[in-house]
């Protein structure tokens, strides 16, 4: 029922406006408002019939920006001027849809992938690809930093050895078993090494 929806949305908008920002009550109201707007079935579809093949790409981009704007500018809604959906639709039609058009049109390769696309398509080969560069960097270990960083009392369980195995696709279970170290210990050590070394590795890869 339209009247109920309008009333619900209005209450949520007012609730959000009445709380200072960054309070839980305001955030709760905003979350419910966004859900309400998306599920209302009353979001307009500006210029529908045009932009064949890319309409949804433009539309989803526009709606995303619109929702962010609503959350950050809810105080601009004036309940005396009209319903929430009216305010939202004017914004969508007059501003956000229009702003989204050049974003999609001007760029090639803005095609969104689906789950089945991801299952069927492999990334194009690039030469050299980042993975190979990282492998190289780790193997080279010119400063010996990767070999020297190891789990206490386990010099064989060093970052270079672990990274090699991860790059080969070994599971943590296998790696933990091989070194006879608790799985959580070895994976936590690895995560910390990543934080420590990723800048260095990136440097290597950018310098090539």
């Amino acid at each position, binding site marked *: 029922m339209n009247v109920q*929806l309008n009333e*619900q949305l209005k209450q949520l908008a007012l609730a959000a406006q009445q709380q*200072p*920002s*960054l*309070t*839980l009550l305001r*955030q709760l109201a905003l*979350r419910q408002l*966004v*859900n*309400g707007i*998306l*599920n209302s079935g009353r979001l307009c579809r500006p210029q529908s019939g045009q932009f064949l093949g890319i309409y949804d*790409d433009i539309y*989803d*981009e*526009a*709606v*995303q*920006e619109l929702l*962010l704007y609503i*959350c*950050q500018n809810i105080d601009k809604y004036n309940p005396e001027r009209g319903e929430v959906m009216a305010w939202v639709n004017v914004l969508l039609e007059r501003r956000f849809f229009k702003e*989204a058009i050049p*974003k*999609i049109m001007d*760029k090639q*390769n*803005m*095609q*969104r*992938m*689906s*789950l*089945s696309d*991801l*299952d069927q398509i*492999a*990334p194009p*080969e*690039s030469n050299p*690809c*980042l*993975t190979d560069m*990282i492998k190289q960097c780790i193997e080279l270990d010119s400063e010996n930093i990767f070999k020297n960083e190891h789990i206490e009392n386990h010099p064989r369980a060093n970052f270079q050895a672990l*990274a090699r195995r*991860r790059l080969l696709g070994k599971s*943590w279970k296998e790696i933990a078993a091989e070194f006879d170290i608790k*799985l*959580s210990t070895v*994976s*936590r050590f*690895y*995560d910390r090494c*990543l934080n420590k070394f*990723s*800048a260095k590795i*990136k440097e290597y*890869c950018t310098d090539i």
Partner: protein
Amino acid sequence: MKNYSETLTFTLPLGSTAHAIAKQFWTQQSDAQKAKQVYLNALAVYAVNFYLNCMGIKTNWEASDRGNSIRQILADVADLEIPHLGLLECRPVLPKMQVINIPPEAWSDRIGYVLVQLDESLQMATLLGFSETAGAGELGVEQLRSLEDLLAHLTGKTSQSKIHLSQWLENIFEIGWQSIETILGLEQQNLAFTLRSNFSIKRAKLMDLGLQLGHRSLALLVAITPETEEKVGILVQLHPMAGETYLPPNLKLSMLSESGEILQEVESRSVDNYIQLKRFRGLPGENFGIQLTFGEVNLIENFVI
């Protein structure tokens, strides 16, 4: 008619920008399986970042980007950095999945985990909820806490950590520290303000003194300005909330040294519009605390310049 007060999730469309970013990471992988995981991880992180932005919480997302391609090739991680708090892990949930495996490299050093459901088309993302820990490496969709719990968790962690005043000079503010207009309302600006205009940055935070004050809040104002020789000048005031003219009496505002000693203190009398500490200054790296005491309630905010 759906009752929106019962839905606990947050849904957003994933537009082309989100996918373009995911694709950037995807193309850097050589293994198709890994590439798929990386794409989904990127969408999950994007969705959580979007949600936090909607809720007014800043993230270091662009910064996380930079080291991430490397980390993504070497591990299965999908984290989002929240300034001063740490990493939030954002895991994708595929349609019909009820239990998600958290990769071991993400079991520790995380402030929490958010599960993001993606539909088959990957054009809609739904934040399902959050968990503070990775469980035993598995999180069930049914066990998640609400998104509001996530926000409370982040805000709670902020109170425990220090406020970095030098970052204020770069307009980076911690959760809860807002502009004066936001906390006190526009009308209040003209009233009891004697914050000298030569303080370049002013922020305020709501302090809840709980039951003692009938849950009324006070506004703690901190204003800073760069001074000569790299010092930072600091002014601290305590104001009643919008709508109130006077502070309750016997409210103590004190400045504490790093070791907790009281360096200066001021107490409200019966008709004070506000109280303030004497202006002080310090060098970047120095620590101090500001304490509010009322009856048995003691609130402390820790700062580092």
